[in-house]
């Protein structure tokens, strides 16, 4: 027998279930408990850049909206800097900017709304540049391991041509599943399709 490597194994994931709101968005579950619900203000009062609203729905394999979904967003500021000390430029981030948000879908319509600013391009690996994007993590009843995807913006097609992540997607038409569609001056539409035709590209990060 060789030596033991002694790594621990990651704890297994389990579905967030139908009552995820109790823990992560108790206001939506129908009661007030915490003084401060987390993830409600992604950018803070001082954020520079274009204020945008992204609305969308998460659709299941039958085309029905998933009405008990919880999404978390993670993004850089308008200058492409993450508010985290592993970003070498993090000290330049505006005070109060977190870049992290938590939204839930409406229990009736299934619609979610993300109010944020459009992020800037961020550094990729080996000197590449990543087109502006919002990282998305999706959990719900029936989702056994949280799903990772990214929201890119349709107007940035030049930057998408050299984005290292988009370029990993072999089937060209599937790349469009990551694009938020402009619906107005500062508004976008972004639907997530969990399964089937036009299934959103999900990532193993």
């Amino acid at each position, binding site marked *: 027998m060789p030596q033991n490597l002694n790594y621990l194994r990651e704890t297994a994931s*389990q579905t*967030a279930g139908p*009552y995820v709101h109790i823990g992560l968005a108790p206001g939506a579950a129908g009661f007030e408990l915490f003084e401060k619900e987390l993830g409600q203000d992604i950018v803070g009062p001082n954020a520079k850049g274009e204020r945008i609203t992204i609305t969308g729905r998460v659709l299941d394999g039958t085309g029905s909206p998933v009405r008990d979904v919880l999404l978390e967003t993670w993004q850089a500021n308008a200058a492409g800097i993450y508010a985290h000390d592993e970003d070498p430029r993090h000290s330049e981030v505006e005070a109060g900017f977190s870049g992290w948000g938590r939204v839930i879908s409406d229990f009736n319509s299934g619609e979610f709304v993300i109010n944020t600013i459009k992020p800037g391009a961020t550094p990729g690996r080996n000197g590449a540049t990543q087109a502006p994007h919002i990282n998305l993590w999706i959990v719900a009843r029936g989702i056994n391991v949280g799903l990772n995807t990214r929201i890119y913006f349709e107007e940035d097609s030049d930057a998408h041509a050299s984005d290292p992540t988009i370029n990993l997607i072999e089937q060209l038409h599937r790349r469009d599943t990551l694009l938020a569609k402009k619906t107005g001056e500062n508004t976008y539409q972004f639907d997530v399709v969990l399964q089937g035709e036009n299934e959103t590209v999900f990532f193993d990060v």
Partner: protein
Amino acid sequence: MTKKNTHTGEFYQRDRYMHPPAYAEIYKTSVPRSPKQALISIENSLSEITGPTFGHNDLGELDNDLIKNYAQTGDAIGERIIVHGRVLDENGRPVPNTLVEIWQANAGGRYRHKKDMYLAPIDPNFGGCGRTMTDEDGYYFFRTVKPGAYPWRNWVNSWRPAHIHVSVFGTAFAQRLITQLYFEGDPLIKKCAIVNTIPDQDAIDGLIAPLDMNAGVPLDCLAYKFDIVLRGRRSTLFENRLEGN
């Protein structure tokens, strides 16, 4: 070769053999909600190795005490327990200052949620959610009541074992994890379709919290220990090829 701080850098690949697959026929809701296409594997960029951070200012005094944090006329009803443990990474290092959030049914198996119609009563003194930050050693604890089992619509007579939902952040968005804690000795664990979405028995065992008599408080409460392991980061780099520096 440089020895690096193990809270920075790229992550080990996630071991998909010990996580449940997206599609698990026995768990019916996963059938229409599971992607059919393969996940696209991407090497970590800044987008994955960074993530939100939280401070003690974000939390309230009683946030980790579910017996008291929604108390109106008295303590929550049920078997009083402490749930405690450490958040570690796959390298065995503690993950300090990370947010742990929990939610659960009350002692009768009923959630305080407008969608839960189970006939067991709501406990007026129990909200069912809590949150805390790990300390410098990755240690966390909650005080709560042991949740009850409850029926759910899967098969005609499906029951969830007693469980607490647990959400953890770690130090980066790639470590984000939601799981469930089960209690040692519960005969419903074996019968649960959601538990059995996990293909690996060791991974299931890793979700079962043992009774920990030493951590309880005599004449007051029992305790269960639940360690949580998040993905580990590469501790050595031959050269730093990340992000343009």
